[in-house]
């Protein structure tokens, strides 16, 4: 079962300086995520949810501690290697979609594939498949400004899954969406987890969104509360 461990964080600690103050964002976090889990991280603003996600994606580096993702100590990777690693293994979904406004939906989805050895035609086929999975086959040549918020987030999901990463990290993916669009996004994420075996780590404030996850973990003041803890007041 060792191979089923996709994330293992040990004594993960993150501090940063904000003006004159030293802020502790994460405090000695111990975390393990199994392959195929859909984990929601909840907690108040500033509790360290997003920081944890960024550390797992190697977007940020911890002050101390250790993170192994898919059996790899990502802190040992150099900048170029970590970029390649992230491209191959991590799909990231942002709250604000973060699509490139001058590129069409298809071009946005193709972006991660530019870093692979796929041919132009293969890239186009993969992008079309990913957009089909999120139900946007008819919006491939639309620019982000021509799409609704929900559609933009679906394009972002297509971009996150197009290179077939093992792990999808979603930072408040429904935070900027209306209830109906949010439900569509959560349905897609659940399907990706259930039908395609993607491991999903999702940060959310929304208890309704968190209910789609197979597990909910709470953070408070930078500390990851033990599994099974009730939602803090």
């Amino acid at each position, binding site marked *: 079962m060792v191979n089923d461990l996709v994330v293992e964080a040990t004594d993960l600690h993150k501090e940063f300086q904000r003006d004159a103050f030293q802020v502790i964002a994460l405090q000695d976090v111990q975390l393990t995520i199994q392959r195929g889990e859909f984990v929601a991280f909840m907690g108040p603003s500033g509790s360290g949810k997003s920081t944890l996600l*960024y550390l797992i*994606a190697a*977007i*940020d580096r911890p002050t101390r501690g250790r993170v192994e993702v898919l059996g790899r100590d990502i802190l040992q990777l150099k*900048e*170029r290697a970590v*970029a*390649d690693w*992230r*491209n*191959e293994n991590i799909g*990231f979904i*942002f709250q*604000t979609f*973060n699509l*490139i*406004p*001058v*590129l069409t939906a298809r*071009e946005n989805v193709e*972006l*991660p594939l*530019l*870093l692979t050895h796929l041919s132009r035609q293969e890239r186009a086929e993969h992008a079309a498949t990913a957009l089909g999975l999120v139900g946007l086959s008819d919006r491939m040549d639309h620019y982000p400004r021509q799409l609704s918020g929900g559609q933009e987030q679906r394009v972002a999901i297509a*971009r996150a899954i197009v290179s077939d990463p093992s792990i999808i990290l979603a930072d408040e993916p429904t935070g900027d969406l209306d209830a109906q669009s949010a439900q569509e996004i959560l349905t897609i994420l659940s399907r990706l987890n259930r039908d395609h075996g993607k491991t999903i780590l999702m940060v959310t404030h929304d208890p309704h969104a968190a209910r789609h996850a197979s597990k909910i973990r709470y953070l408070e003041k930078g500390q990851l509360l033990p599994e099974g803890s009730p939602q803090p007041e």
Partner: protein
Amino acid sequence: MPLPLSYNLKNLTVRKTTTVMTALGIGLTVAVLLGILALVGGLEKSLQATGHPLHLLVMRKNSLSELVSQVTREAVSSIRNKPGIQQLEGEPMVSPEIVTVINLPRHNSPEGANVNIRGLSPMGIRMRSNLKLMEGRWFQPGQREVVVGKSISRRYVNAGVGDRLRFGRGDWSVVGVLDAGSTAFDSEIWVGLNQLATDSNRMEVLSSVLVRASDPVSLQALQNALADDQRLYLEGKREVDYYQEQTASAEPVKFLGIFVAVIMAVGSCFAAMNTMYAAVARRSREIGTLRVLGFSGGSILLAFVIESLLLSLLGGLIGVLLVLPLHGLESGIGNNLTFSETGFDFRLSPAIVALGVGFASIMGLLGGLLPARGAARESILSALREL
């Protein structure tokens, strides 16, 4: 792998106004540089193409131009008898000449400009075998007739065939227009030697003597013989070298033009830099996203440098288009050696255009490098958090 070029192109087209304004700034700088280079190129072409490789221009020692040179008729006789001179129908190819300056009103400048008048014999005309009459006929010896260069004919008042020019002791009939193949002779008025000598009261003292040597070795020998003849106090200069030296008259203009262009280029660099800094600031989150997707800092740097280069190439293109109407335009510049105006055509050669585009690229590269470096070095997290 770099970001696709379409990404850069689309980003430039999205912010049309900024792109056009910056490109226009770069374009104006390139236009100034190209305009100056086209002027200098035209003048150089005009002067460098003048002269025959076997011609020796004999002038008084240390004279910088024919205008200030003095050669006596006695010296001319002595030169005729030197060995190594090519013969034409039994006659030595030697042309004593008088060069003087008059002021003529131009079409766009009533106060006028100085023009060279060259008095020469029929042999002098025959020695310039690469020129032809565009219109009319040659002047008749003993008549107050002139043939004008085509640049004079186009740019000066009353300088067409059938017109009359007033200088010296009276009126002169324009009987022909000379095409000297865009050389310096296109900017001269030619008259009969003796007629001009009489009119300017220079019967004994001429300006120069043009001599054609039999071959390059004879040319060198003639040059040495003249230098060694202390009695004559003359020196022979290769005709092509004489006109080549006159290109120095364009040096101050060239220096000033390049100086202005460089100052403008510094401004344009800052404009490009400002545009690219604004682009980096506006697209900070986009940069962060691209980094999260796996694009390296190097790819981001390259993308912004390419974008800046595209911007500057657009500027270069605008610059070329702005200056293109100048190509072939006739103009003139004061020559500080002959105290007269030398006509020339603005020449925008492919090399000059390439230089302008290269100049624009350098501006783009310098302007884009620092903002691109900033974009590439910004941490992913702080880029993502920028609003």
